[in-house]
């Protein structure tokens, strides 16, 4: 899916938590890298004003651990690493999201009453 799509804000809010957890499951990374990967994955640009408060909530709820590392020739970076609690949340949300999208697909694929006749 190309990142040229402008997804409705409500959809983005619903799916962002899960997608960020999934990016973090690949290993510790930092905010800018997360937003770049989400954009490359097709979600489009994610505003820092949305992404970082979400990461802060992850930090406060124990889903991630943080570590500051010196940047490569630039300012330091704050790395986020998924904790076991974060992995459990990712598994749970992934299952529920799949069930949800399956339900949505079924509703969308149902034959309407007029076509039944």
């Amino acid at each position, binding site marked *: 899916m190309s990142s040229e799509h402008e997804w409705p804000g409500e959809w983005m809010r619903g799916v962002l938590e899960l997608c960020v957890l999934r990016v973090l499951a690949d290993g510790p990374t930092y905010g800018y890298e997360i937003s770049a990967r989400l954009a490359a994955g097709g979600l489009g640009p994610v505003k820092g*004003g949305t992404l970082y408060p979400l990461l802060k909530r992850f930090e406060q709820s124990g889903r991630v651990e943080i570590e500051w590392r010196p940047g490569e020739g630039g*300012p*330091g970076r704050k790395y986020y690493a998924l904790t076991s609690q974060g992995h459990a949340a990712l598994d749970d949300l992934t299952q529920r999201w799949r069930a949800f999208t399956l339900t949505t697909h079924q509703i969308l694929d149902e034959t309407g009453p007029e076509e039944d006749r």
Partner: protein
Amino acid sequence: MNGIRQQRNKKYALGQEFAPDVNPAWAEEFVLELRLKGAAGDDIGAALAEVNSHCAESGDTAEEVFGPARAYAASLNLPVNPDQESRSFVSDTLPTMGQLLGMMLMIWSAPGVGAGEPASVSAGMLLIFLFIGLIIVAVNWKAAAVMGFVARHRTASIVIFVVVLASLLLPAFVLQEPAVELLAPMLLIIGAGVLAAATVLEFLRSSRNRYTDDVLAAPLEEQQKISRRRRAVRRADYLRIFMMPAFAVAMTAALAITAAIS
């Protein structure tokens, strides 16, 4: 032009030191908002450093990526520093009120001490004391709101300050009839005693509190640098405490000498 630029640079020195890749005005607003919300200095420093890191990597401005500084600061929901929560309105206000009362008593006694006459306190002077006391109480009571207003509306704050000052001085000129007459040396001793006690109390309170040490600190910053910043803030706080007694002594001496000569 250079002068303005230098002034601006000085005004935003904090933002430039902690976040060189962020618009200094945005950084300043962000830090101010988090400070007013009672966030800890190291939490604020870390949040600002993360904004700086993103802007440096992406090449975008903080406004583009994070939106308005105040809204972004509010969205982070940073915890309130427990040292700030432990502050009490009474213990913050009483010593300052004591210092003010002691200073006023000393100044009122000075002409009488110099001339060897009773000290007369006019109704206007009593009103001034009452007004200043009310201002101190109001500022301490709504400290965050007052600081926020002053920082964001500097011109309006100066205008309000001048108007309040003028309204304070007016009764002193209009109501000059003596309201109370007291023994000048006794008034001086009481004033000096109250001022000294309140100053010692404020010094002890300031030395013991930990929120003065809660300076802005960036992650990965050298501990020595943070300690230096803490010492500078402590020094400024001690200067604030001892400024009132120094002013009271100088003013009392000047008024007493003037009265003695004339």
